[in-house]
């Protein structure tokens, strides 16, 4: 007991020393690390590590592009933090970023990490720009420094349902999701909208995250023979085995998925079973100079993932605002953020009052091993 107490007090003392050193280091760092610190937050380990790394790489690419332009305000440093998509770790990482004097945080990936992490960040007047959390609640809590570069679930479901009724002329659908804030939220929206647009919902099944065997559910789908099979899964790694098993099972329905399954590895993994799969995705014109600039900067990290371009644009937007404001003062930067109006890599960047940047979902199809723009819900026409 006594030795334990002794050890405890030593440990506590040690933690004081460490904390003290940390403070000293910080001061030193502040002196040497002039410029701007941007944090990135996302799952670098765990199930969604691939997406978290895409975000981090997007931010890195943007910093590289912007650094020469920042002049005396630069250089821009990145502090990448891991939240493992766990709310507790996300809040710890957010507090760490506050300590590190980050002025903006690009992230997080999972809506369930973004929402709790935003509380301390926004309270500390740090910008939080999510490139990936599409849940409506992210921006609908009236937080002044919360921005979103990707689209929203409700917009995406509208585009999907419009495609099914207008273009595919389908009568019946079958829905499956894997029960995450994002994938289920979207699937529920689809179910509601479908019912009101005259589509018959034959079934709505849920699978668990991390499952790879979907044979039981797919057998049901096969028996129901829907016109469209709507697949809402959290990422490409779970979608690939689903597509393979759909192919193996011989399901003839058209398959429609959403933006989270967008990733080059989907085609690499599912190979020919990915052919002909439709998905809703934010429209990106890959021929614009802005996209080319992004693609060049990103080259060394491999193929861009679903959220790489959004993370890139979020970072660019913030840095442009800082440059225009001439300082990192939150009020001034916020005013500049609202004035932004430029062509980003992923889309035209213009933030609205609530922090959203609008959605521009189109339908893509996987054709000859490539994601190809297919149909535009705005005018109901096929892309050429």
């Amino acid at each position, binding site marked *: 007991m006594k030795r334990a107490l002794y050890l405890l007090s030593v440990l506590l003392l040690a933690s004081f020393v460490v904390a003290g050193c940390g403070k000293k280091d910080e001061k030193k760092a502040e002196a040497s690390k002039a410029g701007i610190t941007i944090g990135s937050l996302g799952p670098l*380990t765990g199930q969604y*590590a691939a997406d978290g790394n895409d975000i981090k790489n997007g931010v890195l690419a943007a910093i590289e592009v912007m650094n020469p332009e920042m002049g005396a305000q630069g250089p821009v440093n990145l502090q990448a933090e891991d939240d493992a998509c766990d709310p507790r770790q996300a809040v710890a990482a957010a507090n760490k970023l506050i300590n590190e004097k980050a002025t903006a945080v690009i992230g997080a990936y999972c809506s369930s990490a973004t929402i709790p992490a935003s509380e301390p960040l926004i309270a500390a007047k740090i910008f939080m720009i999510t490139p990936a959390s599409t849940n409506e609640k992210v921006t609908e809590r009236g937080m002044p420094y919360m921005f979103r570069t990707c689209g929203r679930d409700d917009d995406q479901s509208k585009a999907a349902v419009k495609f099914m009724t207008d273009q595919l002329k389908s009568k019946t659908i079958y829905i499956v999701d894997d029960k995450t804030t994002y994938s289920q939220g979207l699937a529920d929206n689809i179910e509601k909208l479908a019912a009101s647009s005259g589509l018959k919902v034959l079934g709505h099944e849920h699978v668990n995250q991390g499952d790879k065997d979907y044979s039981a559910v797919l*057998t049901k789908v096969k028996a129901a023979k829907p016109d469209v099979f709507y697949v809402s899964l959290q990422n490409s790694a779970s979608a690939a085995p689903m597509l393979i098993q759909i192919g193996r099972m011989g399901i003839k329905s058209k398959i429609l998925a959403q933006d989270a399954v967008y990733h080059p590895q989907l085609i690499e993994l599912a190979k020919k079973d990915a052919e002909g799969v439709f998905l809703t995705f934010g429209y990106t014109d890959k021929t614009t100079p802005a996209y080319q600039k992004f693609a060049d900067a990103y080259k060394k990290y491999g193929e861009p993932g679903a959220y790489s371009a959004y993370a890139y644009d979020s970072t660019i937007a913030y840095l442009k605002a800082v440059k225009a404001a001439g300082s990192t003062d939150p009020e001034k930067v916020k005013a500049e953020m609202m004035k932004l109006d430029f062509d980003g890599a992923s889309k035209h960047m213009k933030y609205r009052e609530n922090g959203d940047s609008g959605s521009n979902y189109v339908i893509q199809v996987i054709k000859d091993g490539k994601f190809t723009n297919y149909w535009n819900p705005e005018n109901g026409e096929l892309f050429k």
Partner: protein
Amino acid sequence: MDFFFQQLVNGITLGGVYALVALGYTMVYGIIQLINFAHGEIFAAGGYMGVILISWLFAQGYPPFLCLGVALLLAMGYCALLAMALEKLAYKPLRQSSRLSVLLSALGMSIFLQNGLMLTQGVYDRAYPGEMVQGGFEVGTVMISYMQIIIVAVTVLLLVALNLLVFKTRIGKAMRATAQDKTMSGLVGINSGRIISITFAIGAALAAAAGIMVGLYYGSVRYDMGFVPGIKAFSAAVLGGIGNITGAMLGGLIIGMIEVFAAGYISSEYKDVFAFIILIAVLYFMPTGIMGENVDDTRV
């Protein structure tokens, strides 16, 4: 009725994989009463070895079935070596300590190996190359793919081989003796350290085979693929009666079936709940599993 038979086919395939992984748990448990948490990671390592070796052999232009066979054997050997190293490093020094300490050491090694795989192989899924095994045939409207047949065939083959090894050879006899009583078997000249090593190696080889099968079946592998099947297989081993080899096979099959039929007929989101409820119910009425356990009565 077709629906039923289709689900039956699905269940047998899934159950076969669980059975192969469950055997590793049950054999290790039978001999040193340890829940080897790192077993799921060995399964994942097997899957990765499969991808790595098949990609390489495939690129050299060997025919698919040769690639598969050679990769299967090499991956089984690799995982056997990995498991033996694990045992020497993390479990052997703790042979005299409390069983919970070994359990935690196993948990630590599980995290370590999983992240080791992530660091060496990357966070993205790795695909099996080319079109390894394609297609299938239909009986009525029941779809049976060739891959499912390969999985069941390999599983049955390995199970028969294991049974022969355990019940017909000298090594098997020594393993059974060590499981019954380490001190006594030591007295009659059995090197228990070596037997424990061999047990780990065999369990790991089976897990490696399961890893490759699963990788081929789902088309890809990933560093954390061992976690969920690990827990399921562990449940299967307990359901059958932990330490009991026949029990583990049966348990694997039952868990696979419950999962598929619960998802097919009741609700796919609650399928794991049904699996666990049946497990708990069975243990409530048969506290030592379906086949009964095969070890003496020493517990935490």
